[in-house]
C-alpha cells in the first residue's frame, strides 16, 4: 500500500464569499515509502496548499488525503512532520529546546525530547550549538535545527515547504549535499516544494509539475538515476534535457495564468 494517497482533492478558500478562491482542483497523487518527491509550479499555484493539506493543516473541501489508508483529519507529526520555509524556530528557546520542541508538542516527556534533540542535532552537524539561541545561528544552520526538530519524531514522511527558499546559493548547495546524506540515512519519504529547477530534478525520484491556479497536476516525471546522487549528475544530458523540459513547461503555465488574469480583468472592466 502506498504511504500517502491524495484522492480527487479540491481545496477552496473563502467558500460562499465573493473572495472564493479555488486553490487545488481535483488532484490525484500517491507517495510511496522512502520516495523523494519534489513539487514545482508557478507562484500561487497551490503548492503550499497541497502540502499543508497532505499534512492535515488544511481540511479538503472535496476528496481526501489518506496516510497508510487512514484519512488525515488533523496533523500527526509522527506520520508526517513539517519543515517550514522560514525555519519558524522559537527565538525564546535554545537550539536544543527547539530541536526537541516537536516531540514535546507531540506529547513526549521532557527527558525523552531532550535526548532525542541531542541525537538529532549531532546528526545534522550542530552538536556544539545546543546552548545557543537561534538568533546566533545563520539561516542555513537554523534550517538544520528545523530539520532536526522534524527528524526527532522519526516520521515516515517529511513535508518540506521550500526549505531552502530563504538561503543563498552557496548555503543551499552545502545544506543540500548534507541533507541528501542525512535523508538517505534516515530513510524517510520526502515531499518537497521548490522554486528551483535544479533542486527539483537533483533531489527527486519523481517530479510533480503543477499548473497555474487553480492548481492541477500537469505532469509527473520520474528521474531514474539512483539516489544519493553526486554533483556530476547535474552535468549529464538527462539532467539538462529535464531542465529544459521543466523550464518550458513552467513558462507555458505561467503564460496561461497571465493571459487568463488579463482576460478576466478585461471582462470585469
Amino acid at each position, binding site marked *: 500500500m502506498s504511504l500517502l494517497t491524495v484522492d480527487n482533492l479540491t481545496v477552496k*478558500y*473563502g467558500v*460562499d*464569499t465573493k473572495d472564493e478562491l479555488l486553490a487545488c482542483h481535483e488532484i490525484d497523487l500517491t507517495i510511496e515509502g522512502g520516495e523523494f518527491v519534489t513539487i514545482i509550479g508557478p507562484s500561487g499555484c497551490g503548492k*503550499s496548499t497541497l502540502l499543508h493539506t497532505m499534512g492535515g493543516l*488544511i481540511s479538503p473541501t472535496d476528496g481526501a488525503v489518506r496516510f497508510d489508508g487512514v484519512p488525515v483529519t488533523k496533523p500527526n507529526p509522527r506520520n508526517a512532520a513539517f519543515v517550514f520555509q522560514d525555519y519558524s524556530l522559537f527565538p525564546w528557546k535554545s537550539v536544543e529546546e527547539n530541536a526537541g520542541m516537536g516531540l514535546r508538542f507531540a506529547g513526549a516527556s521532557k527527558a525523552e525530547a531532550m535526548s532525542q534533540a541531542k541525537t538529532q542535532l549531532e546528526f545534522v552537524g550542530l552538536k556544539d550549538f545546543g546552548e545557543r539561541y537561534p538568533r546566533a545561528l545563520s539561516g542555513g544552520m537554523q534550517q538544520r535545527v528545523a530539520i532536526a526538530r522534524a527528524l526527532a519524531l522519526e516520521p515516515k514522511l517529511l513535508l518540506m515547504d521550500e526549505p531552502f527558499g530563504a538561503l543563498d546559493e552557496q548555503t543551499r548547495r552545502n545544506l543540500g549535499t548534507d541533507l541528501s546524506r542525512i535523508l538517505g540515512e534516515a530513510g524517510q519519504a520526502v515531499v518537497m516544494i521548490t522554486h528551483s529547477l535544479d533542486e527539483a530534478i537533483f533531489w527527486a525520484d519523481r517530479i510533480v509539475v503543477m499548473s497555474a491556479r487553480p492548481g492541477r497536476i500537469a505532469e509527473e516525471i520520474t528521474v531514474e538515476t539512483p539516489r544519493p546522487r553526486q554533483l556530476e549528475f547535474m552535468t549529464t544530458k538527462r539532467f539538462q534535457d529535464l531542465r529544459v523540459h521543466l523550464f518550458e513547461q513552467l513558462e507555458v503555465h505561467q503564460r496561461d495564468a497571465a493571459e487568463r488574469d488579463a482576460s478576466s480583468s478585461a471582462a470585469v472592466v
Partner: protein
Amino acid sequence: MPITLTRPGRRVVRRQATIWALRLALLLAVLGAWRYANTAGEVSPLILPQLSAVTDSFTQLVGSSHTWQQAGITVLEMLAAFTIAAVGGLLCGFLLSRGPVIARTAEPLLAWGYMFPLALLYPLFLLWVGVGMGSKIAYAAVGAFFPITYNTIRGLRSVDAKYLQVGRAFGASSLQVDFNIKFGAARPMILAGLRIGSSIVTIFVVLAELLGSQKGLGHEIEQASSRLMIADSYATVLLLILITIVLQRVMERLLRAKHE
C-alpha cells in the same frame, strides 16, 4: 499561504451580531446593576444617583452655556499644554539626538522624569504659578514633555544606518537627511510619544482642575461633589469623557492625515 480557512460571508455577519450582542449584554448588566442598586436601596443615592437623574442632569448641562464656557476653558488648557509639550519635546528631542554622548546623557534623565510622580509637585505648582489656568497648562506641559522628548530621541537615534547611507550616497545635506529620512523613519516612535503625551495632558489638566482651580469642568465636578449634587457630578464626568474622546479622535486624524 493562509493556513486557516477563511470563514464564509454569512458567518462574518453573524459574528458582528455576536460582538454587538456581547457589548449590549455588558451595557445591560451595568445598567441593570445600577437600577438594582437604586431600587433595592442598598446603595445610597448620595453615592449612586438614579439613572434618570443623571440623564436629566446631562441634558440640562448640555443645554447650558455655562457648561460650554467651562468646557472651553478645559479644552483650551489641554490644547495649550499639548502644544507647548509637543513643540518643546520635538525640538529638544531633535537637538539632543544630534550627538551620541548627549543623547545617552539625556535618555535616562528623561525616563526618570516620566517615572517621577509629578502629581506630588502639584501643590507646589499652585504656589509657583497660581491658581489660574497657567498652573494647569504648565503642570500638564511638564508632564507630557518627558515622554515626547524621550521618544523623539529614541526614534531619531534608532534610525537604521542603511537609510542614512542612502541619503549620503545621493549627496543629501544634513538638513535634508534630518527631515526626509530621520523624521520619516522615526515617525512611529515619535507618534507613540505624542500619544502618551496627549493622554498625560488630559489626565493632568483634569487632575489639576480637581485639585485646585476656580474654572473648568474638573472644577465643576469637584463643586458638584462637594455640594452633594451627585447626579450633576456623574453627568459632568460623562461629558468630560465624551469631550476628550472627540479631542483624541481629532488628534489621531491630524497625526495620520499626512501619510495615510
